Each structure stands twice: as C-alpha cells, then as structure tokens.
C-alpha cells in the first residue's frame, strides 16, 4: 500500500491479537488521518491493505486497517449506454473484496442535499461501474459531470448471499434492476455456479449489458414488455418457476416472482405469494442517510423492522411481509 492509499483510510483499529511491539496510542492519533500520513511518510514503514505499522518512539505499533466508508472517487468515464441510461466508472482506492454484489454506493451529487444510492454493477481492481437511469434532478446533474471527483459512501448494505444457493442460481432483473445483477452474475460464475440470467426491459432499445453477459459466456434470456414477454412468463417458459433466484427490479415484478406460477396476471399473483419459492430480492427506498442512522428506509418484515440501507437492500423473499411494502 502506497502513501497515496493512506489518504483514503481514516481509522486504524488497533489489532486485538498480541504483538510484541504493539502499545496503546492516543485515540486522537488513531483517528487523525493527517498525522498518520505524516508519520508514514516520515518513517516509510510497511503497510498493506490489512495491516498498518507505525513507528512511535522506539515502538512499532500494528493496526488493522479499516477503510473509511467515505471516499473521494475519480470519475473515469460517464457515458450514455442506452436512452437515458448512463454507465459511470469510478476509480480510486478500493480494497480487495470490499464490495459485494448487491451492495450500493451513496453518492453526493453536487447541489443536492441528499445522496443518491446506486448499485455497484461491476467491480474490477480499483474501479467500479455504476449504471443509472435519468429519472429526476439528481441523475440529471450527474449525467453532466464528466470529470473530477465524487464524494461517495461505500460499500453500503448487505449484498446478495451467494452461499445460500446450491450449485445453481437463477438471476432475474427488470429495468434498472439489472445493474447489481451483473456484478452478481460475474461473481456466481467465478464461484463456478451454474447461472441462468433473465433480464426484462420495456423494449429492445432499453436493453443493456447484453454484450457483457455474452462475454461472461453465461446462459441469458432477454425479454421485452413491448413483445409481450416479461420475466415471469419467461421464467415459466424456461420451466424454472420453482428454482431459487436472486432478483432486482420494480416491486410488482418482485411480487409476481414470489407468487404461484399458475396465476394468470400480475395482479392476481399479488395475493398469491408462494412461500415455497426461495428468492433473494433487492429492494429500493428513498434514503436519508444510506448507512443506518435515520430509519428513513425501514420496512416491517417477519423478523421485525429492517433498514433497506443496512440490513438490506437484499432480503430473503420469505421474510417479506407483502402487505406492508
């Protein structure tokens, strides 16, 4: 880890495991980034993504590195990839395994009071891709920022739990819900799972990520409302209606995915939630903070109140109280 990296770390938690030269340091020191950088530059002590060693008088101190959740990431590119849909690549210090598929970042959009939550849709080295749709004032501002830095909180939320799936996983996305699912698909393939992807869009011109899925060599199916096929009917056609799945998309779609397969319309399915189907669902909410402090995003679940930004955004379909969301 270079000195450069240190700028992006605020706290070094003192390692709990013993180490001969470890000794107590003033709290103030631990939380003062500037002093750390100074000390580091002065002594050029080794430091990696997991441990930081600091020279204090005649002692060495060893700390566990806790990456700061608030970082300034550089805009690498920000281009339109479909009508009103942009891919924003951010670069900077990202730690190994720091971000899991299904987690999101919370972006300060200059001029806006509240941050905007956007899922991470690709994670590669020191870069991440975010795919976002222009829906209002914040995304409208974001589309026009082509360089510089963004103030970002990351990673936020829990992400999908791939370990809960056996060898096979069905990944279902609708609209912008496909964004986090691309990260999930990549990860599932890395873990050698058998993956089937169903992505639904309003019409072929709204489709995104097809080339990327192709490059992954994954079995994927696109369907379009404009052609009368949605992800639920597609799932039926593929005979996969009882397969465990991970999904992200509009609420009616998620609801329908958790319903009896033999109901005729999405409307009917709403009352026919089928608890035999296991799914991991990523939900959305307007957020105040994005890191659990404000209760602005809580929903009632079978296990009590849960915050979409912290205990979520990914929920087990079986814990959802469908009449409460």
């Amino acid at each position, binding site marked *: 880890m270079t000195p450069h990296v240190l700028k992006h770390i605020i706290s070094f938690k003192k390692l709990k495991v013993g180490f001969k030269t470890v000794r107590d340091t003033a709290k103030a020191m631990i*939380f003062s980034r500037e002093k750390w950088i100074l000390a580091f530059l002065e002594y050029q002590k080794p430091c990696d993504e997991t441990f930081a060693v600091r020279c204090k008088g005649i002692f060495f101190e060893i700390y566990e590195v806790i990456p700061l959740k608030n970082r300034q990431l550089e805009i690498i590119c920000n281009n339109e990839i479909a009508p009103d849909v942009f891919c924003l690549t951010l670069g900077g210090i990202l730690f190994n395994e720091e971000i899991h598929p299904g987690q999101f970042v919370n972006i300060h959009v200059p001029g806006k*009071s509240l*941050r905007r939550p956007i899922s991470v849709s690709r994670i590669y080295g020191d870069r991440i891709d975010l795919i976002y749709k222009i829906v209002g004032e914040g995304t409208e501002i974001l589309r026009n920022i082509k360089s510089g830095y963004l103030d970002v909180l990351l990673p936020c939320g829990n992400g999908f739990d791939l370990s809960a799936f056996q060898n096979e996983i069905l990944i279902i996305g609708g609209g912008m819900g496909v964004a986090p699912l691309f990260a999930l698909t990549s990860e599932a393939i890395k873990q050698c799972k058998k993956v089937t992807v169903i992505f639904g869009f309003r019409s072929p011109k709204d489709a995104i990520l097809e080339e990327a899925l192709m490059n992954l060599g994954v079995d994927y199916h696109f369907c379009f409302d404009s052609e009368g096929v949605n992800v639920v009917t597609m799932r039926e056609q593929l005979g996969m209606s009882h397969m465990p799945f991970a999904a992200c998309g509009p609420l009616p779609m998620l609801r329908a995915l958790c319903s009896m397969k033999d109901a005729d319309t999405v409307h009917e399915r709403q009352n026919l939630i089928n608890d035999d189907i296991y799914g991991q669902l990523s939900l959305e909410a307007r957020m105040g903070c994005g890191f659990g*402090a*404000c*209760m*602005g995003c*809580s929903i009632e679940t079978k296990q009590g*109140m849960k915050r979409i930004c912290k205990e979520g955004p990914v929920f087990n379909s079986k814990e959802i109280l469908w009449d409460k969301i």
Partner: protein
Amino acid sequence: MGQNIDLSGMMIDNPLIPASGAFGYGMDYQDFFDVNEVGTFCTKGTTLHPHKGNPLPRIAEYSGGMLNCVGLENPGVETVVREYFPKLRNTYHKKVIANVCGFSVDDYIKTAEIFDREECVGLIELNISCPNVHAGGAAFGKDPSIASEILTEVKKVCRKPVYVKCTPQCPDLVLMCKTLEASGADGLVLLNTWLGMRLDIRTGKPILSNITGGVSGPGIFPLSLYKIYEVYKNVNIPIIGCGGISNGRDVIEMMSAGASAIEIGTELLTDPMALPRIKKELSELMDTYNITELSEIIGRAHK
C-alpha cells in the same frame, strides 16, 4: 481554549450534540469517526413500547435539506436499555441524552423513569414535538397546559435533568417555554422539525406516506436562530439550539443567540463526517475571533 459546557450539571467537553433521529443509538457512525468526539448525543426518539413508524416513503428532499416522516420508529425503551446500551458501551464512553416520546402522559412517565435509572443517561429530552405521529408528539407540544402536565409528572420520577424539546408549530412558543420553565423544566431544546411537504411532480400527489413531514437542514437555520433568540430573552434555563446547523459558523451564531449547546441532525445524515469537521471549524473560529471560553459567547447577541 475551552469548549466545556454545563447542561444543568451534565458536563460535556464540547457543545456539539448529534440530534435525535440522526444518530440512531450511537452505533452507525463508527465507520466514519470516533463517536467519542461528540459532546454527547441524543438517542432516537424512544417510546415505551416498540413502534413501527410510518410506511415508506419516509424521506423527501428540498434544496435546503430534507423532509422526513419516520414517525418515531424505535424498538421500545426496554430493548434500548437491555440490548443497545450494553453494546454502545463498547465504543462510546460518554453519557447520552435520552429522547423520550409517548402517546399519553403515562407513556412519557414510564419511559423516562426507565431511562433515568440508566448509568449512561445524563439527561432526559422530552420530545413533545414530533410532527409525524398522529397522537402525542407535536400535538402535546402545541398546548402549554398538556406540555407542563407531562413535564411535571416526569420530573416526579426522574433525578436527572429534564429538558423539553419544543416544536416550531407551537402557536406561541415564548409562552410555551415560559410555562415549561415555571413547571420545572431544567432546560429547553429548540427546535424539532418544521412542518412541510413535497409533491411528486408527475402525479401531483404528496411524496411522503404521511402527506406532510418534518423539514430540517440548513434551509431552516435563520428561522430557528430567531426563535432561539426570542425565547432566550424570556427564560433563564439553558437552551440547546437545533435546526439547520451545518458548520462551525452556525454554531457560533446559535450560541450567540442564546444556545448553551447545539444539536445537529440533517447535516450528519448527508455528511457522516460532519461532526469532526464542524468541531475543527469551531476550534479554528475560536482562534480567529479570540474566543477563549466558548461558554462566554452564550447569548452575547443580547448584550
């Protein structure tokens, strides 16, 4: 340079207090800064029984900050003292201000009584000002006689100082505050959120599930400042100023208007690193303006 402040016997080493509802129970900012940097903090508004709050959406935005209609979601006082406080003590070593809310006088009494027994509670903040619940909350905060009844009863069961957090929706805030002082309030917290709303531009319908929400953030700062200035002229108990504070300069202004300490809500939610930043700004400003003891500027606008 001193930043010590005395809140009716509860000493805090700096006047910066995360406001209720913006700091949970103290455990959500650990990835951002050492939470012991705060003077103290206010817990999320806590009721006797667990409370689910309002449906989503609970959050809207405006150019000066945010609106919320969380509606006092909290796990109930028992869970807070039994589960949350022990956990909190692993990382946080100061006292807390317990923000107490209820739907009846009895609720307030029982909740406050439980908090009062807790070692880590330094002060009770009676929240009669939540605009997002249909019973209790701000309804109590508009009527000086109910407010003073709640206060009197709560005072009977508490040994710790009891502050009352008021609502700007109160038609005569000065009267309210004078009544509270007369009824034994140890201090005041001014103010909770201002009632407001936003509409969805496509449908024209309210964005928030509760139709209206509490407005907070820098957009309301001059309104809060004025109210605190007015009340300070009329009472002799400490005031904790709150509403729209977002930087060190605001802290100086709020204290000059009459606040002994200040609470910060929205700014922490939008910038989780705001507290240490504001603390730094405050120290720098004290340097610049030769303020050696921060407590000396309290109310200087009136001198």
